[in-house]
Each structure stands twice: as structure tokens, then as C-alpha cells.
């Protein structure tokens, strides 16, 4: 009768799992900047209101997925006089080329701004060949 339990399970909002959040609550793509330096690609995404526990970064099948979970219930229940911000989780997926070394990716969260460093593989970096 375990199946029944699942049917009547009361969903406690606010503690929804990441996967459920993607399904049930709306998602918006955060604005990003991407630039390239000699050694890395740098990605900056605006995700205001989140601290680093709320953000998840995944590498799967050659794509980089960023997901940020907001306090959806709390945001929806406010009595708004003016609401300009879109209420939703942050979700965005990028295809990354195989020139990125996905074992050395670093990320940091600062003032609601997510910075990801995607280092290039050694083999794609320009190399100067010395003439003997």
C-alpha cells in the first residue's frame, strides 16, 4: 500500500526538491555575460536574492546547466503594490565546447552575481614553437 501514501502526500511548499521546482514553479533565464581570455571563458550571471546554497551548477552531456532556487512561496504570498521582478527560479543551459576542461571549472557567488570560470584545455591554448 505504499503507492497510496504517495497519492495523498501533502506537498510542503518551500521545501520542494530541485527537480520538483523546475516542474512546478516557473523558471526564467538569468542575464549573462560571457567573455573569453587567453586561458579561460568567464561567465557571469545575475541571480539576485540567492546565496550559494541556492545555486546548483551541473555539467551533463556537454552542457552547462545553472539553476537557482528562489523562495517561491514566500515571494508569491507578498502583498504587492508594485512587482517588476519576475517571480521564478533561474534556469539556463549552455552548450559548451570540448575545448573546455570540465574538471577544473570553478564558480563563486558574490552579491547575487554568479561567476563561473571555464578553463580551456591545454591543447587549445596558443603555443609558441621555438625554432631551434
Amino acid at each position: 500500500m505504499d503507492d497510496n501514501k504517495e497519492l495523498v502526500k501533502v506537498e510542503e511548499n518551500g521545501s520542494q526538491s530541485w527537480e520538483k521546482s523546475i516542474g512546478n514553479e516557473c523558471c526564467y533565464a538569468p542575464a549573462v555575460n560571457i567573455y573569453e581570455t587567453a586561458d579561460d571563458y568567464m561567465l557571469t550571471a545575475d541571480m539576485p536574492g540567492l546565496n550559494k546554497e541556492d545555486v546548483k551548477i551541473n555539467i551533463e552531456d556537454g552542457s552547462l546547466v545553472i539553476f537557482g532556487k528562489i523562495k517561491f512561496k514566500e515571494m508569491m504570498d507578498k502583498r504587492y503594490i508594485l512587482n517588476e521582478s519576475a517571480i521564478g527560479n533561474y534556469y539556463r543551459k549552455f552548450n559548451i565546447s570540448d575545448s573546455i576542461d570540465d574538471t577544473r571549472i570553478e564558480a563563486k557567488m558574490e552579491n547575487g552575481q554568479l561567476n563561473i570560470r571555464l578553463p580551456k584545455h591545454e591543447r587549445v591554448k596558443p603555443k609558441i614553437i621555438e625554432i631551434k
Partner: protein
Amino acid sequence: MTLVRFEPLKELEGFNNRMQKLFGDFPAINFDMNLTYHPKIDISEDEKNIFVDAEVPGIAKENLKIVLEDNVLTISGEKKQEEEKKDKNFHRTERAYGSFSRSFTLPVEVDSNKVSAAFENGILKIALEKAAPKTAKEKNIEIK
């Protein structure tokens, strides 16, 4: 006959202008919105307070200024581009930079001594306590 380059976006812009003319205060479909920085702001209330939340990711606390004057709240600041742009090869720039200033007339009187502001995770949170409603003073005027 002159040849004009086909610019589909230009066409849209023209359409937007025509709509603007038609409707005057038609909500602007602003094409250059991304070029100027314009933080998104939420204002909410409960019985006692008014809360103003501004999304200002990537701005340091020192670059923000809040002024409350005559029940008008002004938030201003500047979002600076992280570092020099030179020898950066941009693939995408969706985030806007620049200075901004936004003012709001608050819907109810607030107590200017009971305002607090916090800055966390790129959101500026201002809480303003509503002023106690002025009790209408009854006054009997004597007829002489």
C-alpha cells in the same frame, strides 16, 4: 529607384513607433531597454510596514544611496563594469551597466525615523514603517 537594405528589426521599431503614436500611453515595448541599467523593484506591504526590494546584483553596498524625502523614496546608484573591457573577447553581453536613479511616492505616510535597509545577495531591502494614522480631531465650533 534606390535599393534599401532589408532590416527586419528596423521594421519592428517603426511599428513600435506607430503604435506609440496611436495609443499615446501604450505600455512601451522598449527596444533599447537593455542599454540602460534599470534595476527591478518590488514594493509590498503588510499591516505595519512597506517593503521595497530592489534587484541590484553585482553592485557594492557603497555605490548605493537611499534618500527619503517628503514621502518620496529615491534609490540611486551605479553599476560598474567589473574590469576594463580591453582584451576581453565578449561572446555575450546581456547585463546592463550604468548609473540609475528611481523615485517612488509611497502610498501611505511613513515614519521617517523608522526606516531600515539591508543589503543581501544582490537585493537591497528597505523596510519602512507606516506612520500611525492621524486621528481626525473633532472640534465643536460654538455658535455664538
